């Protein structure tokens, strides 16, 4: 049998998710939003900081979700875009004295460009090959950041210290709370924009490519353009999250952006449910709190707990938090009747 006759029956990377299953209902959204607004007022500064990180990782997971759940490509290299965003913010703030809020759109744009360009070669790869190429990107990133050539800007191995912004207009709230609400506003903005993006013409093009690339191209979708666009948008949002992360943690260093981060984000997406945008926050909570709790029980245990929980998710609830949400909804419906 010659090679040409061979047929590749590749299973799609991601199962199809209908469009309206991507968001929460109106009422539930308002409840979640209300909780996110009120909760920090009663928490200590450290927990407020953790909630800020929760939102930041949720943004990064959301970005990956747009790429994977939307266009069906997947990436193990999001930490690289996160790092570029973080460094952009840090360098602009510390070396050029740019206001922290202004560094975020710049980080987003730079990462968009970076992601768009990386999407070009990635176009020819699919499934497992794409995972490998992005994996390579994530592994290479910390090494690149350590290069002597950029050291003047990046601080090399030492990294850069970032000043934490004060609340503006003399508002009487702590820096941590201010940063939390600042992050919350950006996160909500990006969330709404993402929902609209996926509902737009471009979003439909992404999904057409995800479900059947060949059919999509036959229908006149510019596959190359939309695939790289998905990469760009995803990288851009991750870059904004990275910039926010740098401001919140007040420090950037190459070893903060290793493959572990990329893998965490990937797992966050799987746990939250691929293609279900609100799942991003569930996934983010998973990747922030599970290792913490496990480390409390025994040092070095976090990896094992993480892995076992992940297998449980894969086997019992393969659609992640989305599946749990749907079951919960059905049970509520039964109670009402």
């Amino acid at each position, binding site marked *: 049998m010659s090679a040409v006759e061979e047929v590749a029956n590749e299973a799609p990377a991601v199962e199809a998710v209908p469009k309206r299953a991507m968001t929460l209902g109106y009422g539930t959204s308002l409840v979640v939003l209300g909780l996110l607004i009120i909760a920090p007022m009663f928490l200590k500064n450290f927990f407020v900081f953790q909630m800020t990180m929760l939102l930041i990782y949720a943004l990064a997971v959301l970005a990956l979700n747009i790429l994977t759940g939307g266009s069906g490509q997947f990436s193990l290299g999001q930490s690289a875009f996160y790092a570029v965003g973080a460094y952009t913010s840090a360098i602009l703030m510390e070396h050029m004295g740019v206001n922290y809020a202004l560094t975020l759109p710049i980080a987003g744009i730079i990462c968009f460009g970076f992601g768009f360009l990386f999407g070009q070669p990635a176009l020819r790869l699919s499934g*497992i090959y794409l995972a490998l190429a992005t994996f390579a990107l994530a592994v290479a990133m910390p090494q690149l950041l350590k290069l002597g050539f950029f050291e003047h800007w990046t601080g090399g191995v030492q990294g850069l210290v970032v000043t934490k912004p004060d609340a503006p207009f003399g508002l009487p709230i702590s820096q941590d709370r201010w940063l939390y609400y600042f992050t919350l506003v950006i996160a909500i903005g990006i969330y709404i924009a993402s929902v609209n993006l996926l509902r737009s013409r471009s979003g439909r093009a992404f999904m057409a490519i995800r479900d059947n690339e060949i059919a999509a191209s036959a229908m006149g979708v510019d596959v190359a353009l939309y695939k790289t666009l998905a990469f760009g948008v995803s990288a851009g949002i991750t870059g904004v999250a990275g910039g926010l992360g740098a401001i919140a943690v007040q420090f950037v260093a190459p070893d903060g952006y290793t493959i572990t981060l990329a893998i965490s984000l990937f797992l966050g997406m799987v746990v939250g449910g691929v293609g279900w945008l609100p799942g991003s926050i569930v996934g983010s909570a998973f990747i922030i709190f599970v290792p913490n709790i496990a480390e409390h029980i025994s040092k070095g245990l976090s990896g094992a707990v993480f892995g076992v929980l992940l297998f449980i998710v894969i086997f019992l609830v*393969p659609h992640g938090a989305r599946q749990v949400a749907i079951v919960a909804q059905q049970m509520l419906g039964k109670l009402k009747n």
Partner: protein
Amino acid sequence: MELFINQVLAGIATGAIYACMALAVVMIYQAIDHLNFAQGEMAMFSTFIAWQLMQWGVPYWWAFLLTLAFSFAGGIVIERMLFKPLAKAPVLTNVAGFIALFAIVNSVAGLTWDFTIKQFPTPFGSSPFLGSQLISTHQAGMIGVTVGLLVLLYLFFQFTRIGLAMRAAASLPESARLVGINTSWMIALGWGMASAIGAIAGILIAPVVFLEPNMMGGVLIYGFAAAVLGGLTSPLGAVVGGFLVGVFENLAGTYIPGVGNELKLPIALALIITVLVLKPAGLFGRPIVKRV
């Protein structure tokens, strides 16, 4: 010139390890069409077992054989318990499964044997090989074992019924099933062999990189680079790719200014991406054609 030959030989020696890793990766890729991201950790775990056996006083070669047997069984158990149920799941779920396995094995090894660096013995000694200054006996041993392994695998796949059945199950599972081959067990067998081959790679490289739970991180990535370079569908390609990556890595580290040790890894990765873009099937792989 001496420096050049020295670097090429050292590259071939480490390349032998990459070749073993690549071979293990290809074995599983052939069987289930997925890359095993946990391959390196599985190899690391096997190496720890060999180390533990030797601590208990088992002689080197007995420990080596026992470890191979254990890894073989372990690979089959992992396939039966964790990945057989995932066979029909999307790629994404499988990648998540491999990453979960990675985290579990790494963490369990750390908890059992802690994260301190341990010495690992070599059976070949570390004196210069045949009196030449170019290569040590351990490096020569690494090359020798890899070549031997390759010959054995070749004989196995070409001349035994089981080898033939495994090849059939990998290339055309449907037809293989029709002629009475138990494809499901062939996949398990592939996992077992991959796990054992990984164990050999781990035991051979441990004297060089020292034994600790994160020892295989870099090696696995070079193994991936090698497998991709040679073509994920070709075991021979994986081995050739392994040697090429080893030599390329050493030469780049020596001769390209500013690369040094720091940038060796990114170079290997740049190599992966370049190969994937220019020739996605690799040097020896079969191109896959999609039917519309």
